[in-house]
């Protein structure tokens, strides 16, 4: 859990100011402030619902799909 800093084409993720939501399982991550996560090992990304505009996102995907179609 942290602030997303950047994502690249491989969906590698860089996070800042991370917090560990399960310290029992990942005690070694406790001391870490920022990290780079290889995209292939990401199972899922959780975002707060309020931060996502679903309709807009739908539109964005539609645009993308359309652009790809062309």
């Amino acid at each position, binding site marked *: 859990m942290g602030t997303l*800093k*950047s*994502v*690249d*084409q*491989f969906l*590698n993720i*860089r996070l800042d100011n991370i917090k560990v939501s399960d310290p029992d399982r990942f*005690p*070694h991550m406790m*001391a870490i402030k*920022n990290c*780079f996560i290889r995209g292939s090992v990401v199972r899922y990304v959780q975002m707060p619902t309020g931060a996502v*505009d679903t*309709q*807009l*996102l739908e*539109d*964005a995907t*539609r*645009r*993308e799909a*359309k*652009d*790809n*179609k062309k």
Partner: protein
Amino acid sequence: MSFFGFDATLPERRRGLDDDLDAFGDKAGAEDIAVYTWGTEDYDGLGDQLQEQGDDANDMTFGGGDIGTDFKFAQQTAQYAGMDSRGYQQNQAPTSYGSKSKLKPTKPVSDLFASTEADFFGAPKKSSRLRQKETSSRNIPTTSSFHSSGNSTPTNSTLNVIAQQATNPAPAYKTLEEIEAEARAAYARPNSGFTASAVDQGSYGMQAPVSAGQPGDRPMTLEEIEREMMSNLTKSASPAPVPATLTRQMQQPQHEMPSGLSQGYAQHLYKGQPQAQIQSPVVPPANVQQQARPPASDLTGIELLQKQLGNLAMFPPLGSAAPAKGQPKSEEQMDRELEARIRETEMAEMKRMRKANKIASMSRYNDVMTGGDKEFITRIQLSQLVTQDPYTSDFYAQVHSAITRARLAAVGQPVGRGPADGPTVLQVGPDGRGLGVGVVRSTGGPKRLKETAMQRMTVQVKRIVENAQKRATAAPSATLQGALGKNKFRSSATAPRPTLAVSASSKNLQSSTASTIANLLQGSGGSTRPNGDRKQPLTEKQVLFRLEQLYELILDLEQMRRDQPPPAPTEAQKVHFGMTDEEAEEKRIQAEQWSSQYEGAVEAMWQALLVQEPLEVSDPHPFISLLSVQKGHKLFGRLIRHLSHQQCLTVLILLLACFPQLDVVRNAPMPTLASSSMLGPYERANHKRAEARTETFLSSVIPVVVQLVGRLELKMVAGMVSLCSERWEVAKVLATRPGVALFTILFSRAEMLKHIAAVPVPEGQPAPMVPSQAELDQWNLASANLLRNLIPKLPSVFPSTQAQAAAFGPGIYLLGGNGQNAASEIGSKDEKEGMQMDLKDGEVWGLIASFGLQAPPDEQTLLVSSLRDKILHTVHSAKKGWVSAPRGELRLRNVNLFLNGLGLSADMID
């Protein structure tokens, strides 16, 4: 090993001792133990050389009064110990307790103060963690290592020493309880120092007497002591050897052995468990010093102990039930318990150690990357996001941040980054290339700093992109071995495998099918066909296809809106901006081009909407079909924005005309009296879906309708109402929430217009909306017509009535009279559902109130009389407490909404 005549035996070892105690003297020989007899031929007689009165020199040997720091071994050892841990506390805890333990050592095992060892050490553990942090950061605080030396001042009891030493052995800790128990046991024994010392000697099973028997100038070497201790610790069950030559031992000056021992012991500890030892070496010397200097009364260590034990006896054990002696069972239990505890603690310790090691090993990689390295990675990542058209490719973030900014601005919060104070797109290329950074950051740091950082980043990213381009143009091509021709190497970094590997052909196929379907529809439903030609209604798939098509059109339209060039400048503006005629002309042409494009797009959308299809073309009408899914509901509002007024009107009329065909009306969720728990899972899911559809319809379509109706003249409203009453079974539609909402909109609009008509328009003000008398008449006629048809059926409109009807009969339409109104509240209805039902009833009451306002007086009477039962029932149920208080209140309010409009009140009803 005995220290100063104290029993330091491990309990399991003492087991045998206790049994032997009484017959000690006799048994000693018979026991299968090493018996040391000084004076045989291999005895070197060194013991005889001992000075029995040598205590005078003790001060010289050990230093009196002021001890130099040379004795503070812990300072040296602590440097090697590196990390401090359990051993540290184990020393600490008992010592701190030790000074008090003079009073409390006789406590039973089930000590209130330390139920488990973990508990016992629980509190200091934290601090030790902290300390460990300090020490592990490679500078060992030398001062803290001598921490407990204060405890080992000569004022301390011998108990203290033993406590410390007894607790030290790593493989088998001695807890305070143990020590206490031992002290107790020792005290309980025949009160001669002799025995106590004997027991003590046996307790560690050391061959202490042997070595102690040697003259003081040849103490055991450390290795020997260690070895012995190890062997003793391992052979736990065997009865401890009881030295026979106790007298000798008694006569030993006690200064040599203890110091040597404790040193050796510490050494042993140090080797065995490096972490568990910091304090241990400190204490013994200090104590030794104390011990070695006999008090003026010439007490030996044993005598001292006895004195203390005597003191103990004066304080009866707090918990009573102190197992002084002869309680083997409880002792066994205690042993087991202790063992379990020890194991537990060991496990915990091991776990903690492993964790600490892991963290330590990982911390080697701390700060391997500098901040600059990390930034570089970020820039590489960012450079890959650079696109030709950042606004489009970063569409979501751009629009989302714009919306968020607008919202923030509306709330009045400071906006971190806006169009005014910073671009949302970083331009890194000459041709509009860039990347979007359209993220709202409401926490604005020092702006200047951020900007320079941004600039720097832009430059760097630009460089990376340029380099990448150069590389790409000079793409290496090489011959793979065995391959024919040349293969172009493209690293996976520059051309990653696309995540969705859908081939282009299949996409084309899809889109072409979609377009053929659309063409088919358009062709078949076009105006070329004669009117009245019936067609199949759109299937769900077709609806979805068409909706997607519409969405694309709308996205285009919205993009066009965003790209709208400024309108052609007027003459005044031209002068103002100092434009040349050519520029102005150019602008004008641009604007024209845009508007023609836009109109073309709107026209395309209009066609796609299928509004122009004849009304009877299918049931439901294609346009209505589009509104059958939630996606369509959401689309509706966005569509209307782009349509002209005339087109909107057409849409509205079509919507009204085909209102009963709407999915939300036709398949309206039936209000059920039975709580949803009585429905099957399938039904419930269905019901839920229908409810959700209704919700979106009410929240996205109805507001648009309100907006549209708000622009209508009374004439149009009247026309619509009569259209409705002609075309549909109004009662049926009114039984649904969208229907109620629609009529409420229409009637309230009419009411508003009538108000406007009633108020004389001030002179000189244009009042285009003021209805003429003819319009008013038309409206009155229409509404009267509607009401005449509707009034008999009005009671059935209420959701609560429908629900009751559904509970009694197969369908809601079967109910005629008002008889069922009086039907009592059928139990089992959820309070929550009931509340919702009442709220929905409230909507109907609101509608009926507006009916009442519109109706002429005789109609009003009719209205009231037809609703009489319903009113009475509702009011009674509220007043007589058939329903809960909040619901009753709600019901009264509902009824009053209607009655007040007619100048009545629920209070009049008794």
